[in-house]
């Protein structure tokens, strides 16, 4: 990759959209890429719609503003589709990855996008099965890497495992649960 990639995360307070953007930033940074990861802070309430952002580039980043036209949008919560304009200012050929049980075609029609722009994965079910809790952020990272290819999957998996191992050093089951959730989401994410 050479060009700047800009990603916007939509979630609800407590779902880990900020953590997902930070994890992606740390991994991309470890690989020598220039990164930014930042949340939009509003009133901090569990369940309120929140945003987080990533910029990843081989060139030095000097932008210090919110992302105007994201290339990729990740939606961590399907209920946001009814309440927030999640596709606002999406780049013309941009892609949206949604955590939902729905098929991509149905979701794409709902979002009024072109075929090929929408990917879906049931990250709630995956995280529930692998982690015993609904924490869609890490599986959605797996889906994002698969769809965007911004980092080779093998490299991403190796580095994210190191991040988890540092973060959850005494809880190996959490590391493994997250790794399984990421791999499954990467396999199960579907486009049209």
């Amino acid at each position, binding site marked *: 990759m050479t060009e700047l990639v800009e990603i916007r995360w939509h979630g609800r307070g407590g779902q880990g959209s900020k953590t997902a953007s930070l994890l992606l930033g740390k991994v991309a940074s470890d690989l020598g890429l220039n990164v930014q990861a930042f949340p939009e802070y509003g009133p901090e309430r569990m369940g309120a719609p929140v945003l987080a952002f990533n910029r990843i580039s081989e060139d030095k980043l000097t932008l*210090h503003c919110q992302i105007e036209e994201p290339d990729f949008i990740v939606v961590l919560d399907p209920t946001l589709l009814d309440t927030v304009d999640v596709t606002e200012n999406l780049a013309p050929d941009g892609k949206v990855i949604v955590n939902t049980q729905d098929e991509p075609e149905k979701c794409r029609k709902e979002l009024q996008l072109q075929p090929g722009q929408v990917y879906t994965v049931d990250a709630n079910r995956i995280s529930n099965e692998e982690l015993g809790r609904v924490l869609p952020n890490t599986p959605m990272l797996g889906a994002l890497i698969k769809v965007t290819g911004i980092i080779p999957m093998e490299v991403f998996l190796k580095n994210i495992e190191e991040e988890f191992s540092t973060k959850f050093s005494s809880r190996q089951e959490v590391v493994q649960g997250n790794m399984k959730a990421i791999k499954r989401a990467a396999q199960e994410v579907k486009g049209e």
Partner: protein
Amino acid sequence: MKRVALTGNEAVSLAMKQINPDVVAAYPITPQTEIVQMFSQYVADGQVDTEFITVESEHSAMSASIGASASGARAMTATSANGLALMWEVMYIAASSRLPIIMPVVNRALSAPINIHCDHSDAMGARDSGWIQLFSENSQEAYDNVIQAIRIAESANVLLPVMVNLDGFIISHAVENIDVLDDEKVQDFIGSYTADYSLLDKDNPITFGPLALQDYYFEAKRQQVEAMKYAHKAIPEVAREYEKLTGRGYGYFTPYRMEDAEVVIIGLGSTMGTAQVAVDELRKEGNKVGLLKLRVFRPFPKEELARMLAGIPVVGVMDRADTFSGNGGPLFADLNTVLYGGEERPELYNFIYGLGGRDINVSNLMEIYRYLLNARDGQTLNRVNYFGVRE
């Protein structure tokens, strides 16, 4: 040197850890920053030798820093917004007592309405307190400025406190890559600190904070002006040494594509990074635009700015704070003063923007450049403009 991805808060607290100050005093007023919280973890983990004083207010945090510094300690604290406002009274005492205290400030709006997001009202409120004020575009600059601040503050004949500003949330809470020095390199650079005058030096007793009425107060204040002149000399000297160590150069300001520029924007902080992209875009269309990112706000580098801006037809001055004088923001006022009466004086226009954290992006900055380009071509433009506000 190694590259790591850190938030602005993490970068600054890491710099503090590597400085290993003798005393840090802090109080978590809302909105405080994670800087002192993270630093307290370093203290708890035994990674620094610092005496960490938890006080009952920001006023006391500055007071404790003053006491520590007067006793010959290297003292630091960190604050933000309302916390800085609460320190106001004692900040003057720190400066007049010539105490080289270092304080990172995460710039945020002052209430009301209640707001915790970025603007420069807090730092500008402390503008006349006698502190040296450095501004940072990003985490890297915040980290570098904190380390350089130690040397600037402790320079012979300077002995003034330094405030290192970084933009709230935009920088403080955003992760970016930064290059950090090894601990030993930082220690070698800052050196050990022995105060020329110390309250604890019982063989050479001195007085701090005496009464000086009509007889000597004025002289003390006059000496502060001289100290600022020495700071003006010390800042580039320290920067040159720092560049040898890191390869990263710092001046009073950073010019960007200023060669042949006919329209220039000048301002402080993170917005200047965004403006760099706007300049690139406009240059692609053949517009002669440039950018001046100001790092040193106090002491104000008046001669250097006057030289740099002379002959440029139009200059847009970005202020992320207002003075409510009805005549624009603090940077605008200073620049008008500096350029008044000068030859080849640019036309100055003020843009007050981003109060309370309102986002300013590349399109916004391109719009501002276009107003200024039109002004260059003879169109009327208000002297003072409020950009990006509903009115």
